[in-house]
């Protein structure tokens, strides 16, 4: 599903990923752990082209996303990403946050996208927030909306960049439950996390990174 071959990435002159080779199977859940600044987030952002790689190749299914001819916008629409700080669009309602990309990128009809938003919000138990603005949500609610926003694009892969680091323990649980239910549905996921118990419980595979390299990969 996702294949990285000898990927190296730099941030300015700093090498943040060194010679990473990983193969992630369809439907598998990979947890990425490691100290701050070890390149976990960069790893994720390379997978959907938000960070360019210096060398090496990345494939999603059979499409090489590191090739110049690849339409990155199309790849990104198939690879959902959820951030630590939620990054909801503060000037748009929850409904608009969710329907924007399906309508503008995939050309979905507005009513269709709204139906999808309603059914996805029901799943995470936030239907009553549909007309609220992001600032009116708690952190856990905002993160679940952010997950729904990505899911509305019907992605093949979901990437999570420390989805619970900005949340208190109770809200963390809400968000982890949402991710677990996605796992049950067979979504391919890569999760950067500090929640070790969650990693052990949910992940098929745990990759430990340090200083831009993969130190250890454990089958769980």
């Amino acid at each position, binding site marked *: 599903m996702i294949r990285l071959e000898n990927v190296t990435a730099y941030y300015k002159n700093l090498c943040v990923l060194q010679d990473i080779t990983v193969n992630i199977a369809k439907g598998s859940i990979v947890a990425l752990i490691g100290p701050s600044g070890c390149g976990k987030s960069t790893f994720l952002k390379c997978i959907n082209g938000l960070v360019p790689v210096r060398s090496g190749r990345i494939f999603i299914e059979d499409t090489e996303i590191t090739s110049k001819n690849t339409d990155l916008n199309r790849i990104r629409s198939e690879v*959902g990403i959820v951030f630590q700080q939620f*990054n909801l669009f503060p000037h748009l309602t929850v409904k608009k946050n969710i329907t924007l990309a399906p309508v503008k990128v995939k050309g979905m009809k507005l009513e269709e996208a709204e139906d999808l938003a309603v059914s996805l919000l029901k799943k995470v138990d936030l239907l009553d927030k549909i007309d609220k603005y992001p600032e009116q949500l708690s952190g856990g609610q905002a993160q679940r909306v952010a997950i729904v926003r990505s899911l509305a694009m019907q992605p093949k892969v979901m990437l999570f960049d420390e989805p619970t680091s900005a949340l208190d323990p109770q809200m963390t649980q809400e968000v982890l439950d949402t991710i677990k239910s996605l796992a049950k549905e067979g979504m391919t996921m890569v999760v950067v996390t500090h929640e070790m118990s969650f990693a052990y419980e949910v992940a098929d595979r745990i990759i430990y990174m340090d200083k831009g390299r993969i130190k250890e990969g454990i089958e769980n």
Partner: protein
Amino acid sequence: MYNIDIDVLLVAWPELIKGIKITFFISFISSIAAFLIGLVVVYSRTMGGDFSKTFFTAFVEFIRNTPLLIQLYIVYKALPEFGIHLHPIACGIIALSIYTGAYISEVLRSGVNSITGEQYQAARGLGLNRLQTFRLIIFPQAIRIVIPPLGSQFINLVKNSSLVSFIAVTDVFYVIYKGAVDDFRFFEFFITGALIYMLLTGFIALISNSFERHYHALGRCS
């Protein structure tokens, strides 16, 4: 004791109205054009490639570091040397639009820069292209923050439009100045002129304030 003579104003009133119309017309068209120029410049400087960044940075620096009066004369007097003859009002509109557009682009840029890179990443991560990201995510948030300084730019434009009287446009400043020197009634004409400009710009301040309230009601700014 100075005797205020209202009659001279009444006599000049039809001319003043004509002048106000011209000032209003020039300001109105220039405001729209300046805003569009500002948009193109800020998009190119924040989302464009290296070439357009350099080009538009140089453009903004050239425009805001030279006097508007010189720019007006370049359009009015220098362009005809190259066979481009334009009506003085058109010259005024072109120079005012470019001049104010450069300033507006700087105001907009400060707003765009205040929106975090994370918003950009979230938008691109969903598959929106650069233009969509700018139009739907970055710009709507940026504009809310910069409404007050943006309003000031439009107010400046109206006041700066008085310089077109130097290139033979009979705008309201021209009428006031002519009235004042013809009749030796400086106080009456210049006070009236100040009030006329205040009315024109006060209108912009009202619009700007109502936009600010409108957006304040709709979610926070970033």
